[in-house]
Each structure stands twice: as C-alpha cells, then as structure tokens.
C-alpha cells in the first residue's frame, strides 16, 4: 500500500524562490512595521514559509512541528501579550537606535561569510560534506524516532531529554515568578 516515489518532486526551484522571497519579505516587515501586531503577523508569515521550506527538504515532521509550535503555539502567546500593550504609545516611540556603525559592520561580516561559503562551495572545495539525496518523505517521522529512541541507532536521546528538562525548569520558573503565592 505504500506509494512508490515515482512522482516528479515538488522541491522545484520555483517553490524555493517563492518561499524564500516570502520569508525575506516577512522578515523585513517584522523589523520595519511600527505596529507590533503587524510585525507579529509578518513573523507568522515568515515562520509558515519556513515550514514550507522544511517540506521541500522532505522533512514533513519538522514542518508539522514548526506549524504547531511556532505558528500555532508560541505566536498565539506573543499576540496575546502584544494585544494588551498600548499601541498608541509604542507607535510614537523611536523604532531604531543610532548604532549604525556597529550594525553595518555586523551586516558586512555576515554577508562576507555568506559570499565566502557560496564561492568555496561552487568552486568544488568541500566546505561542507555533500549531502546524499534521500526521499525520506514517507518515513520521516519514523526515522526521527529511531534516531532519538532506538537502542542501537539512537544517539540523541540524552540531548533530547536534557532539552525537555530545561523547558520544564523554564516553565516552573515562569510560574514561580508570575505567582506571588503558590
């Protein structure tokens, strides 16, 4: 019953440029909008486009988690908080600080790094090992589970559990700080 992958892949250049452009425009809108709600909506657009990019990498599980956690969960809580802020006051406040020099230096350094990576990669030098193309779409979830929990192949379980412990501590901390009397 498992469909064989004979279909044309959906990961075409067109979809990549579409999603990447959506992400970049969304990201720019996040920092240029004065209204915090508009920024949040732009951020959600960018996060959803990112989920689309994960889908193009044949990682549907990561895409699903991205939608549920970031777009669905965290951003709703963000909006929840922002809605209660007095928008009229924030609109009047200065949006950017005056540290142009540092900003330009950081941007130039990051841009230089990207160009360096791109040129070395196109020249054929192996800066990063070349990934092998696997259509893991049909069993992506199961493969992630094996990497996490399998008794032989599983190697990330400790890191995973540490991360969940960290989240638990953060939750308890938030509750302790928010509530005067427990």
């Amino acid at each position, binding site marked *: *019953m*498992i*469909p064989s992958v*004979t*279909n*044309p892949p959906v990961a075409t250049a067109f979809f990549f440029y579409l999603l990447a452009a959506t992400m970049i425009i969304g990201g720019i809108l996040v920092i240029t909008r004065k*209204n915090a*709600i*508009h920024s949040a*909506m732009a951020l*959600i657009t960018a996060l959803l486009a990112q989920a689309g990019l994960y889908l193009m990498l044949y990682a*549907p*599980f990561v*895409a*699903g*988690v991205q*939608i*549920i956690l970031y*777009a*669905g*969960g965290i*951003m*709703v*809580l963000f*909006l*929840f908080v922002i*809605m209660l802020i007095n928008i009229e006051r924030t609109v009047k406040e200065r949006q950017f600080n005056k540290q142009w020099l540092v900003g330009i230096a950081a941007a130039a350094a990051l841009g230089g790094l990207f160009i360096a990576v791109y040129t070395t990669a196109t020249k054929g030098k192996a800066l990063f090992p070349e990934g092998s193309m696997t259509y893991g*779409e*049909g*069993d*992506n*979830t*199961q*493969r992630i*589970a*094996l990497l996490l929990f399998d008794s032989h192949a599983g190697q990330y379980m400790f890191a995973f559990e540490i991360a969940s412990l960290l989240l638990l501590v953060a939750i308890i901390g938030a509750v302790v700080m928010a509530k005067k009397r427990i």
Partner: protein
Amino acid sequence: MHDFLQQYVLNYLDSKGLTPGGAGNIFWATVYILLVFGGLSVAVIAMNWLERKILAHMQVRLGPMRVGPHGLLQPIADALKLLLKEDIIPAEADKIIFWIAPFIVVLAAFTVFVVVPFGPTHAITDMNIGILFMLGVSSLSVLGIVTAGWASNSHYPLIGALRSSAQMVSYEVAMGLAVVSVIMMTSLGSIATGLYGAGNIGSQASGTLSMIGIVQAQQEQGVWFVFKFFPLGLIGFAMFAIAMVAETNRAPFDLPEAESELTAGFHTEYSGFRWSLFFLAEYSAMIAVSSIAVTLWLGGWLRPFPGIHGPSIAIPHIWPPADPTAPTGALDFVFALFPGIAFLLLGAMCFYNVRRMPKHPLFKIQTVGLAGFGAVLGLIGLIMFIPPVRDRVGDIFWFAAKVAAFMYLYIWYRGTFPRYRFDQLMKVGWKVLLPMGLALLVLTAVFAMHGELWAQFTGAGHP
C-alpha cells in the same frame, strides 16, 4: 497533446489503492478538492437548517417554517441576505488586519480537509504526518479569531478574543494527549510495518501518523480504537470529544462569543459577507474535528462490525462486487445496501410530511416543493443501489454518517447544557483533562507493552 491529457486522466483510474495526491495526479486532485469543497458547503448549509430545526424542537418550538416547506429554503434566504448586507468596517479599526482575519479562519478550517480520509482512496492526499498536519493547521484558526477581536478596536471583541485564545491553547494540550494515546495503539498488531505512512524501516513495528494508516490499523487489529484496551480507548475518546467542543468555541464552551455577556464576542463588529465567512469557518471546523474523532476512534470509513462477514453469497449481476479483493459475505451485502435505504427513508419521510401539509390552496406550492424534494432524495437512494455506485459510495456514506452523529451531538449540547464560567472552563482544561491525559498515556503504554514489561521484570525475556 490530446492523447497525453487523456492518458493523464485515465492513468489514475488504473492505479488501484492510491489517493490522487499519492498518485501525483493534479487533475484528479483538483476534482477531489472541488468535490470536497462543494460537499462541505452543502453540509454547512444543511447544518444551518438542521441546527435551527433541532434546537427548536428541543425547546418545543417549530423553528423556521415560512421559507419553503418546513423552512427548507431558509439557509439560502439567509445567505442571500448576508451577501446583500452592507459590509461595515469600523472607523477606528485596523483595516488590513480586520480584512485578513476572516480569511485566516476560513483558510485554516478548509485546508485541513486535504488529509481527511473519506475512504481508502477517497482522500485528496495522505501525508506521513496526517494527524499532526490536521491539529497544526486547525490550531492556526485561533490566530484569525485573536486578530479579528483585536482589529475591531472595541471592548467586547477584544475580551472575546482573549477568552478564545486562552481557551484554545489550553484545550489543545488535552486534545494532543488524547491523540498520542491512539497513535501508540497504531503500532500494535501483527502487520504494523505494512501500514500506509508507516515507512519501511527494517522489520520493526512502527505506528503511523497518517490518517489513512490509522484507519487501516483499526481494520487490521479488528477493533475500533474506542473499544481498544477497554476502557482506555473510551476515556481517550471522551477527552477528545470534550476538548473538541472547546476548540471549536461551541456551547457549553462558547465563552468567546457568549451573547449574553459579550453581544457576539470576537465577531461583534463584523457584518455581511465577512461575518458569513466566520460562520462558514466555524461549521467546517466542527466537521473537521469531528472527522478527526471519527478517524481516530470510530474506525473512519469502516462499517460497523468490520470483522464479521457472514456466509459468502452470490446474486447474479448484483453481488459480489466487481473488485475481486472486496469481501463477499452476506453481511457485507446487507451493509452495502444501507446508503440507498437511508436516502429512500429520507424521501419517504418527505412524502409522509406531504400528506400532513395543510390543505389550504396557499400551501400548494410548498406541498409540491416538498414532494419534489422527496422525489430527488428517493432518486438518489435508487442510484445508490446500482452496483458500481454502491461499491464506491459505501465508505463515504459510513464516514459521513459518523460525522453526522457528531454534528447532532453538537446541537444537542447546545440545546441542553448551560454555559461554563471561565474559571470552571480553565479548571476542567488544566486540572481534569490534563492529568487524565497524562495518566491515559502512561496506562496505554503499559497495556501495550505489558508482555515485554513482564518479561523484563521476571528476567524471562533475556537469553
């Protein structure tokens, strides 16, 4: 070119056991999308009429009676009224977000139907992450509600939006825990590796998140998951059934639009077409979560007692079905006749009511209309007896019938339960459903693995 197109369309018909998405056929995927969209719109219209009628009868009223026989044309009249109404955007509203919000809600509510399995091949597509996709995308609708309430720039909508987001975020947790226990159950059974969406990794039995795979797991284990590990499956189902009412903001959890406190909650400032979008989204979201519940616990497209076939029988030209792999038992035949019989019964009900219509000449048009409606229903019933049609609509019928039962429950809740107070709502979500969900998860795991756990405990499992 013509040959290619013909081949493209026909190819899918030859590929057995694949959804259009699975076969990568864009033409049939579009056809399925249009069919699902059309069916959903008809269902929402029917639901509008049914809700008013059933609520009215529960309160010993008649409900809509004037527009068409027994008010059958009332939803169409209402839709026309909404389309013709002035579309008001408040002066102080945030125009862009006020404009976008209804579309977010509608998009979220309709997109989830991409993975709803109406039958083994009657789904637009199937994903490896089917149920995650459904939960994730349907949780996006809260964004639309929150932004709608905020953009209206008014007190009641803002309070409604705050209530709604708090409520939906809380009940999503309980919903997710109930779903996880079912996904655990899919990994049991002897041939769990062959499931749709379960992948092909070694010989290990692994569960599946795919909606089609979950129903197939129930088919192979020979039990609906609501009866699995009695009463654990039932408890999980009950938890989901409560959480899903809260997720769709329906009574008794309709605090976001509590009309006696907040006029209409988050959509107070909306009118005309935009308001009807919220209406459409609310009802299709109800159908969506009901189809999750049906798929996960009530066997999806499977008929009742899917494991019992009865003695094999053969009637020339009528039974067994053309598909050689289909079961040929007597009970299968009886259940295959159900869709046609159901529509014939509906038609007969119409004719019974034709006889009870007032004999006054003013009611003549209505009487004729009702008779015509009954005749159409009866004709659909007769068409469903034709063997090729009968074999293809069976699964869709059972799925739709189970979802319809949930729709009736929604109306019944609204007619009978008083609304919760907000602190009671939070208490139920966090202090009752969440601990129950965690306990359910642990107990399901113990029940599923009890053989191996016992072997570990006694040391018998080690060589």
